[in-house]
């Protein structure tokens, strides 16, 4: 473990781990007390969840036709959220990059990104639902805002990694500020923008399901409603659709990302 050498095998080497392990055990025990975590309850709970899962089968096959339109809604909310989110985050990324933006703007933007990252999308959606009412509008806007925290930071970091020589070369040719940003800053980071956006899309599909249950609509709402109405077979159908959606988007985004990475490397 350390640089010291031990002549023979000796249990004393584990002595430094004793106190941390005891401290950890006490912390875990205390946290379990606060959460009401109990191993016996876990056992009976797991048995109950298996019984519950058993009740869900077989899925309600007749529900699939009415679940198609919510599923499309879920996808569309995620697509729009990712699209607008990427565009807005690009602005934030530019404003937060040290080689593009002035210092005060950078500070301000980084602060905003940090605050946004601390807010889960679902909380943003709660506020949007309070302001605009239920519906996909809140879902799209909250996903858009949710992108800023993650993508804004990633874009800013990608932009900061650009070789300053290429920006200087474009400046030396007499390009205006906008031309420098377009040719020197945006062009080199396009592959990483696309691959980050695809990654975010993968997350957004999952989030869009969760947000649906709070009021954005889509397959998440169907899932939540089916569970609340104890219509578990219908819930199972919605679950299957969700799994298929998540699985397909994951594969698709992975495939597209590997393609973008390859083409980006070629150029």
């Amino acid at each position: 473990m350390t640089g010291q050498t031990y002549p023979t095998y000796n249990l004393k080497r584990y002595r430094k781990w004793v106190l941390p392990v005891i401290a950890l055990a006490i912390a875990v025990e205390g946290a379990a007390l606060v959460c009401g975590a109990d191993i016996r309850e876990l056992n009976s709970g797991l048995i109950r969840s298996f019984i519950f899962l058993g009740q869900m089968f077989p899925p309600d096959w007749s529900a699939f036709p009415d679940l198609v339109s919510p599923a499309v809604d879920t996808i569309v909310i995620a697509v729009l959220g990712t699209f607008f989110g990427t565009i807005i985050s690009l602005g934030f990324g530019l404003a937060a990059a040290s080689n593009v933006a002035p210092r005060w703007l950078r500070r301000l933007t980084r602060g905003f990104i940090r605050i946004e990252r601390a807010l889960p999308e679902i909380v943003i959606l709660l506020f949007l639902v309070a302001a605009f009412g239920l519906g996909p509008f809140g879902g799209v806007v909250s996903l858009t805002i949710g992108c800023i925290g993650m993508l804004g930071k990633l874009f800013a970091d990608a932009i900061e990694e650009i070789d300053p020589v290429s920006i200087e070369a474009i400046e030396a040719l007499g390009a205006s500020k906008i031309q420098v940003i377009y040719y020197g800053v945006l062009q080199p980071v396009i592959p990483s923008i696309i691959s980050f956006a695809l990654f975010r899309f993968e997350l957004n599909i999952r989030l869009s399901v969760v947000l649906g249950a709070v009021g954005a609509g889509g397959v998440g709402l169907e899932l939540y409603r089916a569970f609340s109405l104890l219509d578990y077979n219908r819930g199972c159908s919605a679950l299957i659709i969700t799994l298929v959606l998540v699985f397909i988007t994951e594969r698709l985004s992975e495939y597209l990302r590997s393609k973008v990475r390859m083409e980006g490397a070629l150029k």
Partner: protein
Amino acid sequence: MKQPSLYTLPSTRYKRKATVFSLIAILTVGICIYLGFDPLMLFTEFHYVVDLAGNMLPPNFEMFRSNGHVWRAILETICMAFLGTIYGGSIAFVLAFLAASNTMPAWAIRQVVRFCLSLMRVIPSLVIILVFVVAIGLGPFAGMLTLVWTTIGTFGQLFTQIIENLEPAPSDAIYAIGASRVQVIRYSILPQIFPSFIANLLYSFDINMRAALAMGIFGGGGIGFELYMAMRVLRYKDALALICFTIVLITIMEKLSDHLRKKVLGAATLK
């Protein structure tokens, strides 16, 4: 491999760009119309936001003094995230050894574990929390179990990749002097991945803090539940106070975990 666009004429390039952009624009507008989503609504209906802000300001920080169980909710959220990370991380750690090709010789077990991990990752946390709430009842325990589940899914795969990407040379060397498979793990693999394991645990605590908030809304207890209740009974001033507190809490946790992570990883590179 396709020729890069460097060799095409500028006019062709612009035409291609124009086609792509107009296609994207048409698609976006079409989707917006399908969904009934009007981005301008954010501006035309902005008075709703102003109304809401008027209802929320100033945040009612008094509630932290008058309402004792808010503190309990905060503690519950932190404990949920902590336990989810510890238990989920430990289980993921063990499963990763069963799923990595250089520690698990049996192909069948590897595939089964991998399949379970990817299934855990694909099932949305919404479903998990709904199932646990039905099976165990409302409260932080259900939220904690959900966090354990999601942590196993994400970090099991991550740890598997970390183990598989290790250099084979140290393990080979130890194996060559007659160590058993367990000894190889103990003396070659464990010391190599331990720092990144700790760093990832800290990172996952960070993620779980946020997830714990969302779990609360679906009945997982903790601060998310308080927030949801405050919004539902239209006590926006309380809700804003909770939000402010959460932002501060999560930012502090993030800074702390970043700092510790750098320390752990820095100590590892020194060795």
